[in-house]
């Protein structure tokens, strides 16, 4: 599970229904993505911090929603590379 900050709480987790090796993890430090079933993780540079919840649109694998602890919702349409504030 390399690439996630050590000894930090992972608040949220989502794996793709269409390609289960693609996963997202949400931490206070930000959002992280794995493409090898959690073997390694990379931080998503433009995602917000304090990621309390994260979910992949089951019908559209590149569409990802996340919610921050204080209730802000963001959407990515490119698999987490860029994010747009929704509310």
């Amino acid at each position: 599970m390399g690439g996630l900050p050590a000894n930090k709480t992972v608040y949220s987790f989502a794996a793709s229904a269409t390609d289960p090796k693609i996963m997202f993890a949400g931490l206070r430090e930000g959002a992280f993505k794995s493409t090898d079933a959690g073997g390694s993780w990379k931080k998503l540079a433009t995602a917000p911090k304090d990621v309390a919840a994260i979910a992949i649109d089951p019908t559209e694998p590149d569409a990802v929603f996340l919610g921050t602890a204080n209730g802000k919702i963001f959407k990515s349409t490119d698999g987490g590379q860029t994010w747009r504030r929704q509310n």
Partner: protein
Amino acid sequence: MGINQPTERGLHTMTQMTKRTPGRWRRGLSIAALAAVIALTLVTLGETAGMAHDIGHLHALLVSPTDAGLWIGTHNGLYRSSDEGKTWQPLNIPSDLAAMDFMSFVQDPTNPKVLYVGTHNRGVVRTTDGGQTWAAFSTGLGGPDVHAMAVDGYNPAQPRRLYAFVMDKGLYRILGDLTEWKRVDDGPSNPDVRALQAVNIPTGMGGIFLYAATSEGIFRGPDCF
């Protein structure tokens, strides 16, 4: 801030102004101070009204596969959005099921109108009509504090396999006719579980993996009991 406080403070301020200012300014300043009190009161009332619609501290997020609707569980309740999260409508939860926190969401793989929500202090609650009505769904659960839930819909022979992680009690599962939760084991070695998901990666032992997000990273274990 209560409504009385700005009024008292405003009156106090007006008294001070009366002592210090010439007569012809007194009424004007009083009116200005009164206007300030009214404005402050309106702001206070506005904030109070706004809090009723504040979605609050967020815990869980679900994207429905059928209509791309979003569902969230928060400290304040459950909400649904039909415009990708721009606006939120609160769901009506009966008072006996109202929880301090709605922690996790899963959708039944065989019927998108059936959703299960794990709560901080009311076990699991379920709707079978797309969120219109809710009922307790906790028979057999070892405790009320359900921090994480998962659904495994990948086994055609057993299309409904639900999991709930109960704090200080362990991992529970409910199958088939969904009559009773049964304890599986302690769950991940780190018991501070924040999220759970069945991931369609074969274990090689006839099942798939359950992933758990915890206070010490991500764990996984076989879902092949």
